[in-house]
């Protein structure tokens, strides 16, 4: 204790000394105002009296005044005894103020502070959670070492408190205790471990904070909580989010392998930057393809929504997480949000711009489209202006340099001279980085030499010097020009630079150089030191190259220098004289004079000041200062081999509850992402990796799970029974292939995962849906198959549900619960199931739809490019009192009538009671073909219904009511313009002809910047087809993709073409309906960008 109190007293001593110092020199106004307090003995006696009075209000008044004193930084420790007496007061405000005082002075008056401890111990047992919590807060804030055991006990108790608020306070207290007595670390870690398991969002942030402060190296404590933290993250309070995200960033860098390998090919500019890393990685694991750990993906996915947070710190921390953890092509999703932060306060702008500056060096493409957001306004603060300038310079490339230079021209004239000078430097950097504009920049800079402001001129000279050094030969006229301007330039640095230039390249300007020297000889004595030094330099160089003309001049200058006041100049003169003037004393060095003075000098590199900032984690204080701050924790490099990932598995019972839904989400996201790359679909699947590590039994698990899928089940069922069965049923080629695959799957479990991947399943379904002939047979066979599978005794549970489905084809029981029970021992596949079971119904129905459609004309049945079906919410379960409805566009011609758009609605009953007589109520405006009413929907069941709406070729929303027996819900369904179309097949010639007819007013076009990975026809067509229901027109030309469709209602043709140019694409939409055209163009643009 004594040592501790000593150290504290130390601080206190300094403190009071300073305060005394301040009080002795009060400013005039403060003197008047505080005069009462500074002559204070009497005054404080007065306060003491008030505190000892019987009246609560008097005491309160006194305490308020004391707190006022504390706030002003005035000392009043002598009141301590009087104040502490009131710690047990009933009046809560008085009590709180006493707490404030106590926390402030306890350190200085340790013995007296102990008097209050028993009060807190009592309060810790209070029934009111606020009182318990605040007692713990104050108790732990009293920095008195003797009470450490008491604090420890209190924290232990509070960490198991029923109230999460008290547990949160306990987490804070851990840090306080640790800073008071680091010896308690081990015990505290135990408490942290316990609290990390806490499921309350209130506690999560605080305990992670404690973890970061007490034991940031104990990564092993995080393993079991990783998934929980990811899933809770969205609901944690914003401050906690920041702390958790930064901790998880560090965690991920130690646990997952680098996702950057494969994407390296896509990177344009930074290839060289990553080269070294690249090679190393290539060597270490070039054999295995990169598979992202599902937990890694989970982390990325669960942080993404936070980009929309209103808290700038949260947005920034998500951005740095993506920067440090995400595959390179995914990082750019943070761009928009970062640019948004630039609208915030000046201080926020400053930090965000710093981070963008670092990012923009490595990855120009992220911010190029937002270049204009970094244009400088004359009202910006200087440091903001300079950061923006930095970013603009980083973003400059051949394509945009002319725009940037035009901006710079405005900046150079700025009244803010610091900024103008910085602009000159920026121009210099552009000139050296982009060869095409070097001459233009140089000319511009030369023009600036006649600028009136000398800082600008000086900066220009220095920059010109640097540029010329890189390519001196071609620019002797510029040197001449500068020599001519020499008389007018007064800034010493600039004069020195010109002299150096002339000396260095004196052989390019043989006539002018001696003349300049002559002038300098005249004014030598009046020059600044730096100019004198360069004059001596110039003289020496000229003497060596042109001694005939300059011998006398040089000697004169050397003589002047010999008697200069500055010893540097005297030194230099002496040295030069010995070096160049031959005499008997000159040593061996003189022989090398020419080589010493006229050695070729390397050109300076003009680099960004942010070049090496990336060694710090983005968003940190260290990054902002460009220096390692106290307590900075390095981000480790990616491990070459991922540590065991099973450490994150949590006990079965918990994990189902906690992360089944999340993985289910993952699945759906996943299928969106990787939909079009077939090989990747198998490899990239998160489940794949987890299943790989499993024993053979998992193959059984996955079979039983695939049985839950509509098509696969039926087919594997038939595959199970015997070969003849399916050779009987006339099936299409594709489905046959599938079956053979299925058979293989029995032998190779690895294939089974590939098969069961919902991506492919989706694919098949869509193929089936869009080719009615096939699907009709398919579904007929599936119904026959169902018979067989029913006789199969393997999967009794599923069959139950299947038979139900058969009896009532549109109502399907949600079987999630049963399945998870079945698959308890291998959790990885179960999320799949949960999605599948909901997928089941649409696929069934689309098959049925296909059946009824087999007679429709085939010219519309094109565009078999699969698209991910995006479902939109029609009625949220909260608003629908348990009835949830989602709709999606199946993109099939409507069976109810021409001109209508088919829509499927998935109705789910999430309440715990039956919903009866579900039907469509009052419809408004548009012609809507409803569905026939559903008599009853069981809890947890869902039903898929088809409706059709004639939108009359507008994106106006269709409003109608969903009714149950008791309730009516008004819903509105708004189509995107792409869904109003029906694809049309066309030959290329027809397309050209039709497009030729639709020129002028009927045509809209736009240019979209394209990332290189998207710049081929495959991703373009998939993106377009995702947005709009259009058919791809076969094309003979490389680099042009065409699409054709017609409007559902009026049948007017809509044509679109995307023409690839190097870094962008020309997008053209032609249709008679100009409104549709422009809306479509906009949608396509956003889809492609």
């Amino acid at each position, binding site marked *: 204790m004594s040592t501790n109190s000593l150290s*504290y007293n130390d601080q206190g001593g*300094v403190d009071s000394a300073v305060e005394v110092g301040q009080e002795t020199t009060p400013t005039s106004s403060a003197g008047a105002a505080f005069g009462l307090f500074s002559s204070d003995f009497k005054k404080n006696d007065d306060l003491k009296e008030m505190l000892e009075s019987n009246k609560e209000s008097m005491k*309160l008044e006194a305490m*308020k005044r004391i707190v006022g004193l504390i*706030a002003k*930084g005035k000392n009043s420790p002598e009141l301590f005894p009087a104040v502490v007496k009131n710690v047990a007061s009933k*009046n809560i*405000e008085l009590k709180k*103020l006493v707490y*404030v005082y106590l926390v*402030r002075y306890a350190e200085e008056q340790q013995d007296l502070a102990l008097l209050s401890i028993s009060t807190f111990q009592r309060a810790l047992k209070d029934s009111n959670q*606020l009182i318990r919590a605040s007692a713990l807060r104050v108790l*732990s804030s009293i*920095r008195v070492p003797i009470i450490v055991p008491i604090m420890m006990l209190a924290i232990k108790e509070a960490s198991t408190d029923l*109230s999460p*608020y008290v547990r949160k*306070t306990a987490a*804070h207290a851990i*840090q306080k205790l640790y800073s008071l007595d680091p010896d308690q670390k081990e015990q505290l870690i135990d408490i942290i471990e316990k609290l990390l398991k806490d499921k309350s969002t209130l506690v999560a942030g605080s305990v992670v904070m404690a973890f970061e402060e007490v034991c940031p190296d104990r990564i092993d404590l995080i393993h079991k909580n990783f998934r929980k933290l990811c899933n809770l993250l969205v609901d944690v*309070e*914003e401050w906690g989010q*920041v702390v958790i995200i*930064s901790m998880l960033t560090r965690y991920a860098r130690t646990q997952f392998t680098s996702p950057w390998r494969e994407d390296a090919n896509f990177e344009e500019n930074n290839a060289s930057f990553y080269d070294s890393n690249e090679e190393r990685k290539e060597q270490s694991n070039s054999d295995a393809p990169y598979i992202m750990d599902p937990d890694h993906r989970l982390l990325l996915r669960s942080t993404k*929504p936070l980009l*929309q947070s*209103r808290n*700038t*710190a949260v947005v920034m*921390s998500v951005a740095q997480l993506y920067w440090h953890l995400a595959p390179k092509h995914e990082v750019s999703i943070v761009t928009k949000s970062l*640019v948004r932060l630039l*609208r915030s306060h*000046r*201080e*926020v702008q*400053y*930090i*965000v711009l710093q981070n963008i500056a670092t990012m923009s060096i490595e990855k120009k493409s992220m911010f190029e489209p937002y270049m*204009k*957001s970094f*244009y400088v306004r*004359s*009202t910006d603060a*200087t*440091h903001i202006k300079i950061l923006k300038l930095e970013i603009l310079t980083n973003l400059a490339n051949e394509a945009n340099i002319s725009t940037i230079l035009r901006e710079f021209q405005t900046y150079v004239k*700025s*009244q803010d001279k610091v900024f103008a000078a910085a602009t000159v430097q920026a121009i210099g950097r552009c000139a050296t980085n982009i060869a095409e504009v070097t001459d233009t920049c140089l000319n511009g800079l030369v023009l600036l030499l006649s*600028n009136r402001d000398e800082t600008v001129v000086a900066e220009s000279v220095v920059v010109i010097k640097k540029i010329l050094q890189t390519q001196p030969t071609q620019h002797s006229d510029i040197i001449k020009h500068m020599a001519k301007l020499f008389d007018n330039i007064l800034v010493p640095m600039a004069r020195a630079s010109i002299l150096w230039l002339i000396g260095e390249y004196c052989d390019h300007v043989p006539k002018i150089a001696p003349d300049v020297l002559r002038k300098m000889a005249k004014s030598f004595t009046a020059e600044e030191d730096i100019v004198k030094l360069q004059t001596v330099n110039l003289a020496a160089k000229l003497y060596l190259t042109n001694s005939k003309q300059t011998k006398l001049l040089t000697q004169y200058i050397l003589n002047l220098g010999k008697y200069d006041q500055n010893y540097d100049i005297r030194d230099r003169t002496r040295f030069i004289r010995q070096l160049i003037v031959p005499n008997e004393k000159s040593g061996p060095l003189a022989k090398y004079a020419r080589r010493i003075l006229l050695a070729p000098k390397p050109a300076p590199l003009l680099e960004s000041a942010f070049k090496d900032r990336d060694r710090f984690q983005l968003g*940190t*204080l*260290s990054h*902002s200062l460009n220096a390692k*701050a*106290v*307590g900075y924790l390095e981000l480790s490099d990616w491990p070459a081999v991922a540590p065991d990932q099973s450490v994150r598995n949590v006990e079965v019972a918990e994990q189902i509850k906690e992360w089944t839904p999340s993985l289910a989400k993952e699945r759906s996201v996943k299928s969106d992402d990787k939909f079009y790359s077939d090989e990747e679909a198998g490899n990239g699947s998160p489940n794949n990796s987890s299943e790989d590590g499993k024993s053979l039994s998992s193959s059984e698990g996955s079979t039983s799970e695939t049985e839950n899928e509509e098509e696969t089940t039926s087919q594997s069922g038939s595959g199970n029974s015997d070969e003849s069965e399916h050779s009987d049923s006339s099936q299409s080629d594709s489905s046959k292939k599938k079956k053979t695959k299925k058979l293989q799957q029995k032998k190779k479990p690895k294939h089974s995962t590939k098969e069961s991947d919902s991506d492919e399943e989706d694919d098949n379904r869509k193929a089936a849906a869009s080719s009615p002939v096939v699907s009709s047979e398919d579904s007929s066979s599936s119904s026959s198959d169902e018979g067989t599978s029913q006789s199969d005794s393997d999967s009794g549970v599923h069959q139950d549900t299947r038979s139900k489905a058969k009896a009532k084809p549109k109502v399907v029981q949600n079987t999630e619960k049963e399945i998870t029970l079945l698959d308890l021992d291998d959790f990885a596949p179960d999320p799949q199931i949960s999605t599948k079971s909901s997928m089941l119904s649409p696929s069934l129905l689309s098959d049925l739809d296909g059946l009824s459609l087999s007679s429709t004309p085939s010219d519309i049945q094109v565009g078999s490019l699969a698209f991910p079906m995006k479902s939109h919410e029609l009625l*949220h379960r*909260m*608003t629908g009192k348990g009835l949830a409805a989602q709709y999606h566009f199946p993109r099939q011609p409507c069976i109810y009538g021409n001109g209508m758009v088919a829509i499927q609605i998935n109705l789910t009953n999430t309440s715990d009671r039956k919903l009866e007589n579900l039907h469509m109520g009052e419809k408004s405006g548009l012609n809507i073909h409803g569905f026939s009413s559903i008599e009853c929907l069981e809890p947890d069941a869902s039903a898929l219904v088809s409706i059709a709406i004639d939108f009359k070729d507008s994106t106006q929303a269709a409003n109608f009511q969903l009714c149950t027996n008791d309730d009516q819900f*008004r819903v509105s369904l708004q189509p995107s313009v792409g869904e109003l179309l029906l694809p049309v097949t066309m030959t290329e010639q027809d397309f050209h002809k039709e497009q030729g007819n639709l020129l002028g007013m009927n045509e809209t076009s736009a240019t979209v910047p394209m990332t290189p990975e998207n710049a081929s026809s495959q991703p373009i067509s998939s993106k377009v087809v995702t947005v709009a229901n259009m058919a791809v027109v076969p094309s003979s030309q490389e680099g042009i993709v065409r699409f054709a469709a017609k409007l559902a209602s009026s049948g007017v043709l809509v044509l679109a073409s995307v023409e690839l140019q190097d870094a962008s694409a020309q997008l053209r939409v032609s249709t008679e309906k100009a409104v549709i055209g422009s809306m479509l163009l906009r949608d396509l*643009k*956003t889809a492609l960008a």
Partner: protein
Amino acid sequence: MIHSLFLINSAADIFLEKHWKSVISRSVCDYFFEAQEKAGEPNNVPPVIRTPHHYLINIYRDKIFFVSVIQTEVPPLFVIEFLHRVAETLQDYFGECSESVIKDNVVIVYELLEEMLDNGFPLATESNILKELIKPPTILRSMVNTITGSSNVGETLPTGQLSTVPWRRAGVKYTNNEAYFDVIEEIDAIIDKSGATVCAEIQGVIDACVKLTGMPDLTLTFMNPRLLDDVSFHPCVRFKRWESERVLSFIPPDGNFRLMSYHVSAQNLVAIPIYVKQNISFFESGSSGRLDITVGPKQTMGKPVEGLVVSIHMPKVVLSVNLTATQGTQKYDTTTKVLVWDIGKLNQQKLPNLKGSLSLQSGSPKPEENPSLDIDLKIQQLAISGVKVSRLDMHGEKYKPFKGVKYITKAGKFQVRT
């Protein structure tokens, strides 16, 4: 994390200090004063300052510097955001955040700071939670308190602190249930000399004032949600529903709050409501200059332009001006060198014009650059991007609330280069 906080006024007086861990001497602020001196203008003070033992992160707001002392690594935005939150809370409590108000209410400010941070880590920053813990001062309450001796401090844990909707307190009651939404859009633009748009974008916010009884669940639907390119939400907004349906579904906080802010994509052409014809020239001889500015309507969507103000930061050499305005008033502040021309409502028939001569300091060279004009304007009843709220639905409560939406377009950072 945050160790101490000092509030400093523009006269470099430390008028409040608060420590969350052991006390740090206020002499640490000397480093700040040094930086402040170096920076000249308060806006140029670097937000992060390094001292031998500490790091100072500061914000400048309402003429007060909030200087926080940090000892170890922490995301600087974390601190900056928190300091702004403190300033906003003070504003919310006292109507303004100024030195005199803070000095008058020092005890409440201190109590607030005590609640907002525990050991340097934010504890409660939601305004409605704080308001339950520490009641904002009103004349009535202070009178009642003096008579009855009751206190300003809540005795129980605010319900919001534990619930899943921490932003709303339970048991809200109003006799008039109303929900108002202000859609405010700001045009940020740079117009070049010739009148061409260098860059322009629209930033919008939706501020809400919701006074509804109970726990209403609101859904705000837009006519054209696709216009919104980038959005950020109050935590109450359900992000998933926005993702899937582009509607704002939320249980609102009680009272005033910012529901969302958005950015309208730069691809859409931004309508610039006015044009400015300007001619500012300085003469080489005679140390004088001429100024001629005319403002006219461009794309106003048929709505009147109001509150039009043109301000010009003149070069330092401009000593005085001799100008006449056909409309509005003009004033030249010779110390700050700012010329403000307050036009008011833009008259479509007779365009406002400001014309006259400038006199320069004799002997000094004419300024390199012409000053740029900052424009401020306001258009009522119009959201310039075309964003429109189509409906507001309420669930979960029986009564019928009174609803209203107001649109305003303003100039944000609207600059005309000359």
